[in-house]
C-alpha cells in the first residue's frame, strides 16, 4: 500500500501550478465556498443600509465617524457594486463553466458506455437487490424480464452475454444526469443577462404634466448621503396628453393609500411619426427598446376636469359646463371659457410649491374668459368653502362662476424610462432554470439489471438490482413492485 501512496504524492508534487489552480477553480468545494461567501455578502448588505435606499441620509447621520470610515472603506454602503462582490460573481461564473466542462466527460459515459454488464457481487451490494431461482430457457427468461422492465417504466432495455452470464439492463431518465449542466447553463444565462443590463442598460425618470413635451430623463446618482441627477436624452419626444388618478374614496386625498391606479396618456413623436401611448400601474409601454413605467406622481392638488356653474348676471337659465384640464368650452353667446389653473388650497398670489394640497382643503379654479373682440379676463370658480370671498361673488364677462365638482388629479406624473437589453436574456434563464429544476428534482435516472447464471444445481439464478440518482424511496417501492410482478409471473406460469 505504500508504493501507490508515494506515487500519488509524487504525481501531486509534479502537477503544475496552473493545473492545480484549474482543479481548484472547477471544484465543487470552491463552488460551495463561493455560494457561502456570496450569501454572507448579501446578508451584510441587508444589515448595513445601502446608499440607494430611502432614509439612508438619516442612517448615515446616526453612524459614528469610525463606523462611517470602516463601512465606507470596505464598500459596505454599496456592497452589491463593490469590486469584491463582482469578483465573487465572476469567479462563481468561472467555477460553474469549468465545473461543467470537468464533469461532462464523466456524465457522457452514461450515454457512451452504459454499464450494461456488471459484476454480480456489485449487484448484490446495491440497496435495491434481490435474487430468484427460475427454471427454463435463459433466453426466454431474459426476454420475459426485459418485457417486465419495460412494463415497469424502464423503457430502454439491452440484453447481452458476458462470461457465460446473460445480462438484462434497462434504464429511464438518462437525461436527468445532465440536469446539473442545464442548471449551470441557466444560471450563466441569468448572470449574462445581468451583465448586459449593467453594461448596456439605462434608467431615468421623466416628470411630465398634460400639455408638456420632453425628451429628457433624469437619473439620480447616489454617493453616500449626497445625490445628484444626470440628464439623458431620448431619441424621441414625449408629449403628455392626459393624466388620471383613480381614487378609492372620491372625497379623500390624492395619496397613495387612497389610490387605485394612475394612468398616463401620451404621444411619442419621432421620424416615423406620432404614436399614441398609454401606461398605468403594472402596465408598462414598450417602444424602440425603451420601456415606460408609471413610477410616481407629484401630490399637488389639481383637477383633471372641472364642472362650473355659470349664473348669468342679467338673469336667465343657469348652466353647468365641464372643462377639461387646459381645455376650453365655447358658450352659446360666443364667449369661450378656458380652464387655466387649479389649486387644491386656493390663495391669492403665488402658490407655495412645498404646501401639502393633496387633501384639497380649499379648492379653486382660475379661468380665462375670452369675449369676442375683447381681451381675455380672469375669473375664479370656488367650492362652497370659499364661495363667500368677494372675488368669488364678482361677476366676470356677464357670469357668476361656481365650482360644482372636479375630478382630482396630481400636478404631474413621473414616468420611469428604462432601456434594458438584458431582461429578456434573464427571463430566458429563469424559464430554463424552472424547467431544469423541475426536471432535476422530480425525475431521476433509474437503472436496473438482471444477471442470469446457472447455479451449482444447474438452475438459473437471477440476480436483480437497481439504483437511482434521486428519490431512493420511490425507486425502492417501484423496484419492489417490479420484483413482485416477476414473482407473480413466475408463480402463474408454474401453476
Amino acid at each position, binding site marked *: 500500500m505504500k508504493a501507490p501512496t508515494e506515487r500519488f504524492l509524487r504525481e501531486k508534487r509534479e502537477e503544475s501550478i496552473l493545473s492545480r489552480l484549474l482543479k481548484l477553480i472547477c471544484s*465543487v468545494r470552491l*463552488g*460551495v465556498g463561493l*455560494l*457561502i461567501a456570496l*450569501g454572507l455578502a*448579501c446578508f451584510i*448588505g*441587508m444589515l448595513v*443600509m445601502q446608499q440607494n*435606499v430611502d*432614509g439612508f*441620509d*438619516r442612517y448615515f*447621520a446616526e453612524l459614528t465617524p469610525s463606523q462611517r470610515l470602516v463601512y465606507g472603506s470596505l464598500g459596505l454602503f454599496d456592497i*452589491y457594486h463593490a469590486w469584491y462582490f463582482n469578483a465573487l460573481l465572476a469567479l462563481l461564473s468561472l467555477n460553474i463553466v469549468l465545473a461543467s466542462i470537468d464533469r461532462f466527460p464523466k456524465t457522457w459515459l452514461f450515454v457512451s458506455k452504459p454499464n450494461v454488464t456488471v459484476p454480480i457481487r456489485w449487484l*448484490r451490494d446495491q*440497496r435495491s*437487490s*434481490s*435474487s*430468484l*431461482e*427460475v427454471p427454463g430457457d435463459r433466453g426466454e427468461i431474459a426476454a420475459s424480464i426485459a418485457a417486465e422492465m419495460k412494463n415497469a417504466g424502464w423503457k430502454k432495455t439491452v440484453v447481452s452475454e458476458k462470461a457465460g452470464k446473460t445480462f438484462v439492463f434497462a434504464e429511464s431518465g438518462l437525461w436527468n444526469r445532465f440536469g446539473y449542466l442545464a442548471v449551470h447553463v441557466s444560471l450563466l444565462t441569468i448572470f449574462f443577462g445581468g451583465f448586459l*443590463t449593467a453594461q448596456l442598460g439605462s*434608467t431615468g425618470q421623466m416628470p411630465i404634466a398634460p400639455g408638456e413635451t420632453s425628451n429628457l430623463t433624469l437619473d439620480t446618482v447616489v454617493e453616500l448621503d449626497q445625490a445628484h441627477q444626470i440628464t439623458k436624452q431620448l431619441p424621441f419626444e414625449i408629449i403628455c396628453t392626459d393624466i388620471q388618478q383613480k381614487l*378609492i*374614496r*372620491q372625497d379623500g386625498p390624492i395619496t*397613495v*393609500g387612497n*389610490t*387605485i*391606479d*394612475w394612468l398616463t396618456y401620451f404621444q411619442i413623436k419621432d421620424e416615423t411619426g406620432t404614436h399614441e401611448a398609454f401606461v398605468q400601474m*403594472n402596465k*408598462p409601454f414598450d417602444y424602440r427598446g425603451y420601456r415606460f*413605467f408609471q*413610477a410616481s406622481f407629484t401630490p399637488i392638488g389639481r383637477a383633471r376636469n372641472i364642472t362650473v356653474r355659470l349664473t348669468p348676471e342679467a338673469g336667465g337659465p343657469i348652466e353647468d359646463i365641464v372643462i377639461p384640464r387646459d381645455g376650453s368650452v365655447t358658450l352659446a353667446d360666443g364667449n369661450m371659457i378656458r380652464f387655466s389653473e387649479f389649486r387644491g388650497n386656493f390663495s391669492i398670489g403665488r402658490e407655495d410649491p412645498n404646501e401639502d394640497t393633496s387633501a384639497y382643503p380649499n379648492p379653486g379654479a382660475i379661468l380665462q374668459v375670452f369675449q369676442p373682440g375683447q381681451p381675455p379676463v380672469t375669473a375664479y370658480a370656488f367650492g362652497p368653502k370659499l364661495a363667500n370671498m368677494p372675488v368669488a361673488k364678482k361677476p366676470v364677462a356677464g357670469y357668476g362662476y361656481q365650482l360644482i365638482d372636479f375630478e382630482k388629479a396630481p400636478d404631474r406624473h413621473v414616468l*420611469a424610462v*428604462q432601456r*434594458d437589453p438584458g*431582461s429578456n436574456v*434573464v*427571463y430566458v434563464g*429563469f424559464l430554463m*432554470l*424552472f424547467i431544469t*429544476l*423541475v426536471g432535476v428534482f422530480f425525475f431521476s435516472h433509474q437503472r436496473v439489471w438482471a444477471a442470469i447464471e446457472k447455479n451449482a444445481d444447474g438452475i438459473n439464478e437471477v440476480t436483480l438490482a437497481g439504483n437511482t440518482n434521486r428519490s*431512493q*424511496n420511490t425507486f*425502492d*417501492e417501484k*423496484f*419492489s413492485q417490479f*420484483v*413482485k410482478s416477476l414473482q407473480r409471473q*413466475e408463480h402463474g406460469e*408454474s401453476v
Partner: protein
Amino acid sequence: MNQEVLNQPVLVSDENIPADGQSSNWWSYAPFLIAIFGAILLLLAKVVVGGDRFISDGALMMLALASYLIAAVFFLTNFYAPFKFAESLGLWAAMLGVFFNLSSWLVRWAAAYDRELAIFTNQGNSASDMPWIFRYVPFANLYDLSLAFAFGAGVTTLLVMRRHQFRLVAALSLPLAAIILVLARFIGSEFIDLPPVLDSYWRPIHVGIASLSYGVALVCFAVAVLYLLKDGLKVEKMAVWTSIFALSVFATISKFSVFNPSSFGTYTASTFVGESRMSLALRADIPYVGWLLVCAAALMIGGIFAFASYFSRNDDKMRVFGNRLMQAALIVQAAGIGVLVYQIKTIQYVVDHISTSQYERFGVWMLQQEDVPQAQINLMGSQQLFDISSKWITENASRLHLSLNANPVELAALITAFAGTFFIVLFSFKTDKIREALPSAETLDGLMYKLAGVAFAGLALLLMTGAVWANESWGRYWGWDAKETGALVAWLTYAGFLHSRIAYGWKGRRSAYFAIIAFLFVIFTYLGVSYLLPGLHSYA
C-alpha cells in the same frame, strides 16, 4: 417456479409500507382534499349568504390555531404512549386546522371585496366599476402572508402525514405553524388600502409561492430537528442552542434594554396613540417582566454551564441538574409572558410608565415622521427636542395605550423562545422513547432532502416571479432590495444543501444543519426584513 430464494428482504423496509396501508391509495389524500374543498365550500357559503353574522376570518384563524395545537398535543402524547385512536384524532385535528386556516384566508378575500364595495358604493360609484376580484386576494400585508405561511406549513404537514411513518412530524411542525398564527394575531387583522403598485396579478402568484415555500421550509426545519434527535444528537446540545436563541431574544427585545447595564432588568413595550395602528417610538416600562426574563436567562446560562460540564466530564448529575434548570427556566419564561400579557391588557395610564429619558429621541422620531429634513433636525438642541416631545405627550396622554399588536415580533419571539425551551424539556423526558417512535434516520433524511428540494424550487420560483413583477412595476428585475436579497440568501443556502449532497454526498447531520440555517434565513426574510430593515417590501 420451483422455489424462490430472497437473499435480502425485498428492498422495502417495513417503514415504507405503512401498517394501515394509506401511503399509496387515494384515501390517504382524503384529509387534504376534505380540508381544501371544505374551505372552498365555506367561501361559497360566505359569498352566497354573506352578511355580518357570517363567521369572520379572525374567528376562523383562532379555530385553526386551536386545531393545530390540539393536533400537536395528540401527536406529542403519541411519542410516549403510542395510541392509534389518539393518532387518528391528531390527523383529523390537523385536517381541521388546515381547513380553518384556508377558510380564514378565503373568507378574508371575500371580506376585503365587501369592504371596498361598501366604500365604492357609498361614494356613489357603480358596483360594476369595482376593480377585478384579484385585487382583493389577501396578500396585502404581513398578517395575510402569515395566514398563508401557516397554511403552507399545515398543508405540507398534511401531505407529509399521508405516509403513516411521518405523522409524528406534525408534533413539531404544527406548533410552529401555530406560532405563526399567534404572530398573525399580534400583528392584527385590519384591512389596509392596497397600495396601487401591489394591484397586479403577479401579487397572488408571487406571494402565494412565497407562503407555500416558507411553509415547506418550516416542515423541512421540523424534520431536520427530528432527524438530529433520531440520529442521537444529545438533547442537552439542542438545549444549549435553544438557550442561546432565547438569550439572543431576551437581549435584543425591548430595544436591548433587558441586559443593558444602564437599564438592566427593564422591559418596555411600544405604545399606540388613539386609533392609530402605527406603534410609537415611545416605550412604556412593564414592571416585573424584565426581571423575570433576567431570571430565566440566568437559569439558562446555568443550564448551559451544567451541560458543558456534562459534555466534558460525562457527569450525569450535571445533566440532570441542567435539565432541572431548563425546567425552571421554562416556568419563569411562562410567568414572564403571562405577566407581560396581563399588564399590557390592564395598565391604564401609560404616561406614568414612560421614562423621560426617551423624550429627546421621540422628538427626533416625531420630526422624522413629519418628513422634516435630517439636516434641520440635527440643528435642533436637546432641550428643544425634549420640549417638542413633552408637549405632544402631555397633549396626548389620555390617548396613549398599550396593545399586544404594538410589539408583534417581540411577543412572537418570546413565545418562540418559550416553545424552544418547552420542546427541550419535553425531549429530555424519556428521550429514547421518542427516538424509538420516530422513523429511521435514513427515512427522515430522505424526507428532509425532498422537502429541501421543493423549498429550493419554490424559492427559485419566488425569486423569478418577483423579478418579473419588479420588472413590470419598478422597471428592474433585481434591485438588491432587502427582502429579495433575503430570499436569495435562503435560496443559496438550500442550493448549498443540495449541492453539497449531490457533489460531496453530505447527508444526515450536515444536511440537517443546512436545513436549519436555511429556515432561519427564511424567517429573517419573512419577519426581520419587514420589521427591522427598510426597503420596497416593508409592507410585508
